[in-house]
């Protein structure tokens, strides 16, 4: 073998062992294998050789070339691997335990509870209706069977306005409009009226931790052919079990509300003790939750629906009370305070 070839081979081997960076390696590759590289030069110098020498020399140079290429490739892989290892080693450990950055907004707790209830009702085919806060005496009272001089008007301390209208003291103020809105479809197609109407109500009373002059209710009703007390009990039990996410027992007691007949006070089995009796249910096992009943014939009639043909039930959930129960809010005034120290805690609940 030609001395030069041997020399070059030794040279490459020794140089390669001294290289620790990819850049140098590339230079090395160029200096041997490039167009002007030493090995390339050997090949170029071949034409000066005798024909019989040419073959052997050429084969040797090509071997050297292959050898150099392999060596460089291996070295490249080695250096790349080393470099990756270095990169990994250089990666600092991030302190994942540091406090997370938060700029989450918040919903009003009433919105959260209202959405949960609405979702349940929607899943059972109820529409969600909106209604005004300023209503007429007719809407709030007369249309729902509370004529003038009815004692129920005294029971609710209503805010009257200078123009004779009033701030609705109960969501029932929407009943008449809803009966009139969906009544025709009921009469024409037998499509039952299934509606809930959440809304803000007002009572003219002094506020304290348990009393507010502005609060939310969610009323609902279902009117159709043959809607019965039995259906009402079924519905309330099913709906409240969804609201509280556990199997609830319900109990009806007679209760007087002008817009229903019969009217009921609905109790649910105590959420804390399940009915065994505990301080929060005053050891009765029951919590008084909401009024409900069969819609009074006068209310149906006033809404353009014949009470001899159709029956229905209505119920009223105190949304404000539900929110307070759910989140353990003790002072009802926090809800309208606008105080973000309280309210910003209510990020999405679902």
């Amino acid at each position: 073998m030609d001395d030069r070839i041997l020399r070059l081979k030794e040279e490459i081997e020794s140089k390669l062992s001294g290289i620790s960076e990819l850049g140098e390696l590339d230079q090395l590759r160029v200096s041997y294998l490039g167009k002007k590289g030493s090995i390339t030069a050997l090949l170029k110098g071949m034409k000066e050789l005798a024909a019989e020498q040419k073959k052997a020399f050429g084969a040797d140079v090509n071997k050297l070339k292959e050898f150099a290429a392999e060596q460089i490739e291996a070295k490249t892989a080695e250096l790349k691997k080393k470099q990756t290892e270095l990169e990994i080693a250089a990666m600092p450990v991030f302190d994942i335990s540091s406090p997370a950055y938060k700029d989450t907004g918040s919903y009003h707790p009433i919105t959260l509870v209202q959405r949960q209830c609405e979702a349940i009702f929607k899943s059972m085919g109820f529409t969600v209706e909106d209604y005004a806060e300023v209503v007429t005496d007719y809407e709030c009272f007369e249309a729902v069977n509370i004529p003038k001089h009815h004692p129920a008007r005294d029971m609710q301390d209503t805010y009257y306005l200078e123009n004779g209208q009033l701030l609705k003291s109960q969501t029932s103020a929407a009943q008449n409009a809803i009966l009139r809105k969906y009544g025709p479809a009921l009469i024409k197609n037998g499509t039952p009226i299934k509606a809930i109407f959440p809304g803000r109500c007002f009572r003219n009373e002094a506020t304290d931790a348990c009393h507010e002059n502005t609060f939310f209710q969610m009323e609902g009703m279902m009117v159709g052919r043959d809607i019965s007390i039995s259906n009402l009990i079924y519905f309330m039990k099913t709906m409240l079990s969804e609201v509280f996410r556990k199997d609830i027992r319900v109990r009806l007691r007679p209760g007087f509300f002008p817009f229903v007949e019969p009217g009921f006070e609905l109790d649910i089995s105590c959420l804390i003790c399940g009915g065994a009796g505990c301080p929060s249910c005053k050891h009765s096992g029951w919590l008084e939750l909401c009024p409900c009943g069969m819609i009074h014939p006068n209310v149906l009639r006033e809404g353009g629906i014949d009470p001899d043909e159709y029956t229905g039930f209505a119920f009223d959930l105190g949304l404000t009370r539900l929110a307070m129960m759910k989140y353990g809010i003790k002072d009802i005034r926090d809800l309208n305070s606008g105080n973000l120290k309280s309210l910003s805690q209510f990020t999405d609940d679902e």
Partner: protein
Amino acid sequence: MFLSMNWICDFVDLEGLDKLDLIHRFSLSTAEVENEIFFKGSDISGIVVAEIKLVEEHPQSRKLHLLKVDAGDGQLTDVVCGAKNVRVGLKTAFAKIGAKIGDITIAPRELAGYTSYGMCCGESEIGLSDDNSGIMEITDDIPNGTDIKSVYDVDDIIFEVDNKSLTNRPDLWGHYGIAREFAAIAGRPLKAPEIDDLTVYDGLPKVDLKIEDKLCKRYSSIKVENISRNVSPVNIRIRLYYCGMRAINFLADLTNYLMLEMGQPMHAFDARKVEKIRVKRFADPFTFKTLDGVERNIDENTLMICNGDIPVAIAGIMGGLDSEIVDDTTTLALESANFDAASVRKSTVRLSHRTDASMRYEKSLDPEMTVPAIGRFLYLLKKYDSGARVVSALTDEYAEKFPPVTLEFDQAYVDKYTGIKIDGDTIVNTLSALGFEVQRNGEHFKVNVPSWRITKDVTMKADIIEEITRIYGYDNFEINTALSPLYPVRMSEVKTDEEKIKDLLVKRFGLHEVHSYVWAYNDEQKALGIPVEYNVRLANATNPNIETLRNSIIPTQLCQIKTNVSYAPEFGIFEIGRVINGLDENNLCIENKMLAVTLFSKTTSLKDLYFKMRDILAAIADDVKHSELEFVKTEPTHSYVHPVNLNRIILDGKDIGVIGIPHPTVAKAVDKKGSIVFAEIDINQFASAKTQPIEYDEPSKYPAIEYDLSMDIPQGVYFSNLRECWKNDGTELLQSVSVIDTYDTEDIHRITVRFVFSSNERTLSSAEVQEIINIIAANLAGIGVTIAGI
């Protein structure tokens, strides 16, 4: 109202039944019973009747006496007693050794050197009354040694019914009506009360009595003389006390007893003071002293009972001091009357004086009750004071009767309403037990409603359903789902939009939802220098701070920002709430539902905060309506807004709201250094804007050409003006325009705009793009914009 089980059992035999269970069923079938039930008498035992045989002074004590007492066990017992009313021959309640009073067991006890073998008891000590003036005085002829529980109704179960739950049941304001419910619940017969036969007095002269006002429905009266009894029988006093009333004197107690028993308020006048009973109102106001000694102002609406022209009682509320029964009264004129419920209620409110009588009258009592109540009163009076003599005929003015109510229904009606099967016999039995007269003809029922239920309570078929079902028991109902046709449920656009907006503001922009009141906050706004603007006012606000309804949520939110300035260096609040914008042509309030957003920051510049708000609004429009907003400069109409940078917000050609900055004085009052920006949008207007459909744009297969122009914008030229310059030229090739850089100094406002051109059909040549750019540049030059580098 407290109710006595003994009293109820006067009228229905509940022997052998679990009383507590009955009370529980009463709560589920009739009216709510409070949780706590009182077992009266259960805490005392071994108390007997004993007679004092000897009284000696205690040598060491001025208060104490040494007694010898006959407690019926064949020997006299030594007792030391401190009561003032000890005397030989007095029969009293005596706690023998081993007797129990509450937690105390009576044992021999030494008192100042003498041993007492038992204790003479006062009524208050053994819980029979609140009389603690001395030891009990028993006047009944009872053998010594008799356990008082065997002669008096000491043991009793007392339960309380929430008055509110009786609002609609005028018949339940006395034990007799309650007993009727227990009879129906227990399935036992109701006994009629024993009454005096009033017809025997028909020959006697009538009471001079006249109703002169329609507010009195009925007035029944009778006169009785020669009444000698002063103190009520023990059982009457115990019952009154257990039911929350104090014993006063026999006649007053008896009227109260009748009220608690029959539910009929009664009044006993001293007949010497009331000779000509007239019921009327007076045109002129005057003052009147009621028997509690209080002077009360009587106006022209208050119905009065008079002796001729002299008022002697406020009808249905309280008697007068001058005509009340006194100790030497021997002749009484008894009132058993019925008054207009609303009138009594209103008078009660006007006088702010509610009594046991008015509480009952305002529920619409049954006028049929006045005469039987007199019969019952006389029966009891004569039973306990045998000398009493009726000296007048029953005098009964019955001015207005309630018309009878007859209801007809059939089995199918009951089946439909209840959703279960309650058989005909059960219907008949239940209604009959409650006093309804039922005629049944197969599936058909005809029912006469009893007089005590027609005054307000049972007037239509649906009321009958309640009667049947409540006694049947709602716990016994089989529960079934309703069968109803399926149909799609659609939510209103407004509702859907509201929810999307809330999510966007909370989730993307980190804002906090708050609630506030519908009226202006006078005091809080004043502190910020925001006047309460003229608007519809509350007619009966009790709090001067909340007299005017708000016409915008922005002042409210500025107040809320003020209270939250220390919450965080930067935050934003929003609310979807109502405002009232005056009255319409029908004098009705114009109510609008608004979204209000207010941003506050101590760290972001006012300008950046303003653009943050602008971007929030744009995001709402883009996200919910796929539309772009326009802004139109507007002039302030409220003193609390900054006149500069106030813009109306336009969506789909509709004015939907406003964006602005508070007036500097207001802003400084909120926080000296903070920046504040507000916006308010009419939600219904917003929702009514068309939601643009998504139009899919096939991405071009050919490369796009970007072309950047740096423009120096002169003052008074806005981006909206620039937009006009490329609006019409090369539209089909101009794919997008964006601002990629801004550069501002004192004199220069420079922005770099990137135009992107592309075609779906071909690769564009730089020459044709340059052509469009040249036109745009010329347009820009036309409004005074200089293009840098051209």
